[in-house]
Structures are given as C-alpha cells and as structure tokens.
C-alpha cells in the first residue's frame, strides 16, 4: 500500500499552503537536505491529519490569504488513500518510471534544441508529478486537452514522443490523432483549449459517454477571458470537465501574484463548483486528487477545478532566460522538492528501488533518449507542396491555383514526391501504426488510460529476476 495516509502541509514562498505526504516530504526551504536523495527518507509518521484551515505546527500562516476560507477543500479533506489504494508495487514504480523517462525526454529535447535540431523546446522539468499523476488517472473514455507543455500527459496518453518533438522541430503543427489517443492537439494560445474542452464535455454528456474531459492550463492562462468563460459555461451546463491548473509559479517572467489577488483554486467558488489545491510535486497526491475529480465529473456532478501547486524548474522555453527575473535561492528551494526525488525517496523507503533496478531504469532512460534523438534527427523536412494540404476539406480554388504555380517552380530535387520518401512513410512525422514498438520499451505508447506497471525492458538485456529489486 502506498503511504499517503500521513499528510503534512507546507507553505510555499508565495504563501500558498500545500499538502504533501509526509513520507515523501522534502526538507524545509531553509534547512539543508537531510539525506542524499538515494537514502531512504522515511520519516516517522505524523499522527493524525491537519485540520483544514489550521496551520500545521511549525508552519504559521504567512498572512490572511495563506489558508483557504473555511468550507473550501484542500487535498486533506479528500480521503486520498482510498483513491490510490489499488496501486500495486509495480504500478507505484511505474509512476516513477514515467517521470524518469519523461524528464529524460525533456533533457534530450533541450539538448536537441541547443544543437539546432529543434527550433524551440518548452521544458516540463519540475511538473512531472502533476502531469504523470493526472495523466495516469485518465481512462480510455476520457479526453485530455493540453496546453503546450504537457509532454508528460502526452506520454501517459500513448502519444509517440517523437511526434511531440516534430512540432518543435517544425515538421508539422500537431502530429497525432486526438481521437485515437484521447489527447487533443497542443494549444499555444493559452486558455483557448478550455472552451474546446467545455464543448467537448458537453457533447460527452449528450452521448452518454462513460468518460470525462480534463483540460490543462497554467497560472498565467487563468487570467484569460476564455478560461473564465469556460468556468462559467462548464458550471451552468454542469459538464463533466476537470480543470487542471498547473500553477508553476511563473508565466514567463510574471509571478502568479500578478495574475490573481486570490488563490487560483478559490475562483471556482465564484462560479459555483468545487475546487481543490494539491501538492503538484507529489505524484501520488496528484493521481489521487485527479481520480477523485474525474469521478465527480463522470458521475454527472459537474466540473471540478484542481490547482496543482508546482514549479517550472527550467526556463519558459529554450528562448527564455529566467535568471533575469527569479532568484537562484527560489530555484534551490524548489529543487529540494523535486518530484522525482520525492517519489524516489518514497520507493526507496518501501524497498521498491534497489540499486539494480535503479541502474536498469537509468539504462532504459538513456536508451530511450538515444533512440528518440536518432528518430528526431532523421526526420526529413516535409514535401514543400504539403504546405498547401488540408487548408479546407473542400478544395479551395485559390489554394489549388497557388499550389500548382508553386509546384512548377520547384526543382526535381527540391521536394518533388518522386525522389523523396512518401510523406506518410517518413519517420517521426506522425504516430502511425507500427511506431509503437519502435522504442522497444513498454512505456504506454499506443495505450491511453490507466496505469502501467513498472517493469523495465531494455533491448538486448534479459529481464532481471524479481528478487533483484
């Protein structure tokens, strides 16, 4: 059984109170790390749970806004353990493995951008727990609407990571099938996707779908009109939609306090639906809270807002320089709350992460990154005339005319289809049948929904016996 029975509360630098599982708890901001990350960080269980609205001893309120108004939920009001009680040891490890591989993908993508192979990359570093926890809460009937940083959710929905990289390489604008994966295309105009999700969820109700929709957005997007219109719409029509806000503290250079005088999760009350704030760096808490929220939505009880308090550890994108607006001290504080370290400590404490398994996972991650890199750099530029494809379903005479004129200007070696691979056969430009096994690892590709047990499979190695863990 996962140990989320003992929960503690922390204050973030911005005065937010967040709830963490004590076993996975990281050191206080001002305290030195108690132990190296690989040492079991099992702390004695804290008896009882803190009362909502009352500060945990030793963590006085930062100000009048530090706690939620009485009557509002925090994660401690939900019976979180009940929502993750079914997890096997392997599934627990699987969550960690997801986060490790997604972070490794993120690191590789950043390197690829620095080497000129990607035009841009938006790093998710620091948000792995929020994305994997919520992503693994989704089932096959659910539909997720991402913003543009949800690489971890994409992973959980079985989207080929190379298809995600293809967008940032400029090969296409969205190379996966939303219907197949239950994962809509990335949305770069922040907040716009919340309305698509609200409409989609409305249709789910009419279709008597067993699923719900979840929409990802950030603290910055919470200021957009579309998000607030979506709150109102989802509420009055009582649609099955989970608003999942990753408050990563920064909207490029603007801190959350520039977006809102109140805390983001409080906003739902004004729209008439429940909300909860959860420690976004605790993958189990995020999984439990997302399952709870999705259950409400699927039961026809309307929308829920989840605010996952987390931190964007990297730059906004590779084009950003965060040293211009935030301090190394703040980064260090959050580095000690790294979601991977916390799950790692939790697993180690439970004896689920021995040296051998750890080594094996590292090898798997490196293999994965190596193959991803190879597939990324092998992606060819699309056929030049493909820029005229799919402007409309019905042929548009003006576009057809321009395509012909443009095609006539091309040299044969310039992208005529004769001397190039057929677009559909090019690597990495989409997720087609057959790519699922290309990585040789069982990582959820092609699978949307549910948990994936954490066995590691590395090509060329025999699977290690269970007792080696």
């Amino acid at each position, binding site marked *: 059984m996962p140990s989320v029975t003992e929960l503690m509360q922390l204050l973030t630098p911005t005065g937010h109170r967040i709830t963490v599982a004590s076993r996975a708890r990281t050191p206080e901001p001002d305290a030195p790390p108690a132990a190296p990350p690989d040492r079991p960080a099992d702390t004695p269980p804290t008896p009882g749970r803190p009362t909502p609205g009352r500060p945990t001893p030793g963590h006085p309120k930062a100000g009048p806004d530090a706690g939620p108004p009485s009557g509002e939920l925090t994660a401690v009001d939900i019976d979180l353990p009940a929502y993750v009680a079914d997890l096997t040891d392997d599934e627990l490890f699987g969550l960690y493995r997801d986060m490790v591989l997604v972070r490794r993908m993120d690191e590789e993508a950043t390197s690829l951008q620095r080497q000129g192979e990607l035009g841009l990359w938006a790093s998710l570093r620091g948000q792995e727990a929020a994305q994997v926890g919520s992503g693994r809460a989704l089932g096959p009937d659910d539909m997720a609407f991402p913003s543009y940083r949800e690489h971890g959710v994409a992973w959980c929905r079985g989207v080929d990571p190379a298809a995600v990289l293809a967008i940032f390489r400029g090969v296409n*604008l969205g190379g996966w099938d939303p219907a197949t994966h239950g994962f809509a*295309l990335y949305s770069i105009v922040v907040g716009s996707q919340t309305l698509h999700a609200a*409409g*989609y*969820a409305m249709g789910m109700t009419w279709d008597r779908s067993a699923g719900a929709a979840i929409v990802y957005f950030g603290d910055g997007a919470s200021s957009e009109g579309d998000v607030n219109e*979506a709150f109102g719409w989802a509420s009055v029509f009582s649609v099955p939609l989970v608003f999942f806000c990753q408050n990563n503290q920064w909207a490029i250079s603007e801190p959350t306090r520039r977006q809102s005088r109140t805390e983001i999760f409080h906003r739902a009350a004004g729209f008439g639906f429940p909300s909860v704030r959860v420690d976004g760096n605790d993958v189990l808490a995020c999984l439990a809270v997302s399952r709870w929220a999705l259950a409400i939505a699927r039961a026809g009880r309307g929308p829920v807002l989840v605010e996952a308090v987390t931190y964007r550890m990297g730059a906004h994108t590779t084009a950003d320089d965060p040293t211009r607006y935030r301090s190394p001290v703040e980064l260090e504080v959050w580095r000690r709350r790294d979601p991977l370290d916390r799950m790692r400590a939790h697993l180690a404490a439970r004896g689920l992460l021995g040296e051998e398994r750890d080594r094996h996972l590292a090898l798997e991650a490196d293999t994965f990154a190596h193959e991803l890199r190879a597939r990324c750099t092998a992606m060819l530029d699309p056929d030049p005339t493909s820029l005229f494809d799919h402007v409309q379903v019905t042929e548009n005479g003006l576009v057809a005319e321009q395509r012909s004129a443009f095609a006539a200007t091309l040299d044969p070696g310039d992208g005529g289809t004769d001397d190039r691979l057929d677009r559909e056969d090019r690597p990495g430009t989409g997720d087609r049948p057959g790519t699922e096994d290309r990585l040789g690892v069982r990582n959820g590709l092609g699978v949307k929904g549910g948990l994936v047990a954490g066995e590691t499979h590395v090509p060329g190695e025999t699977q290690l016996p269970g007792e080696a863990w």
Partner: protein
Amino acid sequence: MTSGAVITGEQPAEVGGERTGEPATPVPITLAKALNLGLRSAMAADPKVIVMGEDVGTLGGVFRVTDGLQKEFGEARVIDTPLAESAIIGTAIGLAMRGYRPVCEIQFDGFVYPAFDQIVSQLAKLHYRSGGRIRLPVTIRIPFGGGIGAVEHHSESPEAYFCHTAGLKVVACSHPVDAHQMIQQAIRSDDPVIFLEPKRRYWEKAVVDPRPLGEVSPDGTTGLHSSAVVRAGTDATLVGYGPTVRTCLDAAEVSAADDGRSLEVVDLRSLSPLDLEPVLASVRRTGRLVVVHEAPSNVSVSAEVAARVAEQAFYSLEAPVLRVTGFDTPYPPARLEDHYLPDVDRILDAVDRSFGY
C-alpha cells in the same frame, strides 16, 4: 445560378411559404423566415445539428430567425448560451470535435470580435494543424450591415477580417431563396462557414420553395460556392453581395429608365473563396466594373475583386475598376448612416465616371 432569375421575378413560383398545409397559391416569405425554414430542414435532416447562441431559444432570436426551433427540437438542440461569444465559438469547436454540427448565432456583427481568436486561430486552423484529422463543420451566422437605425456596434460589415483568414468559408446571402438554400449548404459543409445575413433585408419577401435542400438540389452544391448573375446587361457590370445586391439592382433599374444603359449585376454570394468566373466573363463583355459593398474600402473584398480582375481581364477593361463602399471611418451614428451607405446615386455616379474614361 439557382436564384438569379428569382430576384427579377422571372422564376416561376413553386410551392407556398409553409411546409405543411400546401396553400393554394404560393405565399412570399421573408428572408428571415426563409432562413428559419432552412435551419429547420437542416435540423430535421441531421440529429447532430444543434443551434446555439444568445436568445436563440425561448425568444427565437432577436430577429426571430430561430423562432420555434427550440419548441420543435428541444432545449438540448437549441441552446440559449451565456453571453460569451468566445465561449459560443470555442465550445462549438469542442462539440464539432465530438461529432456535432453546431450552428452558432452571433447576435450582431459588432459582437463577433470577442470570439476573434476562437474563429481565426482555432476554428479556421485546426483542420490544417491536425493534418486533416479534425473536421470542424461549424456555421457562424452573423446578421451584418447597417441601414436599420441601430445603436453603435449593430451595423458593421466585418467580412474582410474573415476573408483574410485561410481555412474559413465566408458567404453572404441576399435573397430569400438563396438564404433558404445557402444556410442548409453551410450547415452541410465540412468546413467552418461564416454565414453573413443582410439584416436590413430580413423583411424582404419572395416565394421560396420550402422543400429541404436534398429535394430542391439533390447534390447540394449550387448556390453557396458560386457567384451569380442576377440581372443581365451589356454596358457595365455591378458587383455586390449581401444587402448591396438589392441596391445594385435598383441602380440598374434607374439607369435603364433614365440613361438607357444596360447594367449587369452579379451577386458574389461567396466572399472567400471568391468565384470570379461570372465576374470576369461579364467584364469581358462590358469592359466596365463597379464593385459595391457597405464595408470600408481599405483592404476590402472590393480591393481583392479589383486586383484579381486587373490581373485576369486587364485588356478587357475600358476603365479602371471603381468602388462604391462605406467610408473609411467607424460606422457613424444612425442619423448619418444614409450618407455612409452606398446608395443608387453613388452607384450611378460611379457608373458615369466609368463611362467618362
């Protein structure tokens, strides 16, 4: 070309204005009622068609275009929405992803701008963004244009913004027969359509064949995608769309009576993509072209028509392409709108100037 003759009253009247009852003699119906009939037929033909907008349900729309639809099809298919234009379009996108065919009403032209991002960045581009995987059959109905003495933001002509955006179809109806067919075609289209309704012509009447599109035009392809010659002539060509088609026809009438000139009138109907073949064919015969719309002239539909005609029929032109449009000012107070809107005199003045070359 289905409606061309109707406007000049030459098409034989068919059935009466009501779907049932079969009145003995054909009854002319208003353009608003023709749209209403078209919407009803589209909803009856496809259960995925839903109507959504502000006041479209219980009230039947501020112009009564959706009158009675909620009663007939229920609240789940005719939805009174919150007053949130971006949400109307944004949720319609989500519904279309789910397999629905939403028909959104934007109550007045000047209220479409809050939905601008959802229309131009999302609705127009998702088919392209998805490599053709996503289809968004969303129709956005917008009453447009002036001439009804309205307050600010109720008389605008925003078509150029949308014509400039790849991925959108932009159409304008001018006549009850077209309105009835084109709304059904727009709803049937797998592409998003901006459907502009000439609000000062809502009350103009004509006899309309009330049968559903499938019976009137089995292939469903006429009308929406093509421009049409609505009055034949030999001396000069007038091009209009939406509310100015009637103004052009009136001008042609006066010109024939007073000056003995034979003016041909073309209704563009589809503003994006443009169907310029009938215009080019007409210009090759007349050598003179005047384009008329209510929207301001700068970077407008008439600018595009003029440029394309100059490219493709340069040696046929006896005079420069001239334009009669709204002025490049904000839409003025209602007491001044008669000066702002193109009228018969301004059109005839332009025709005179064309003949002066």
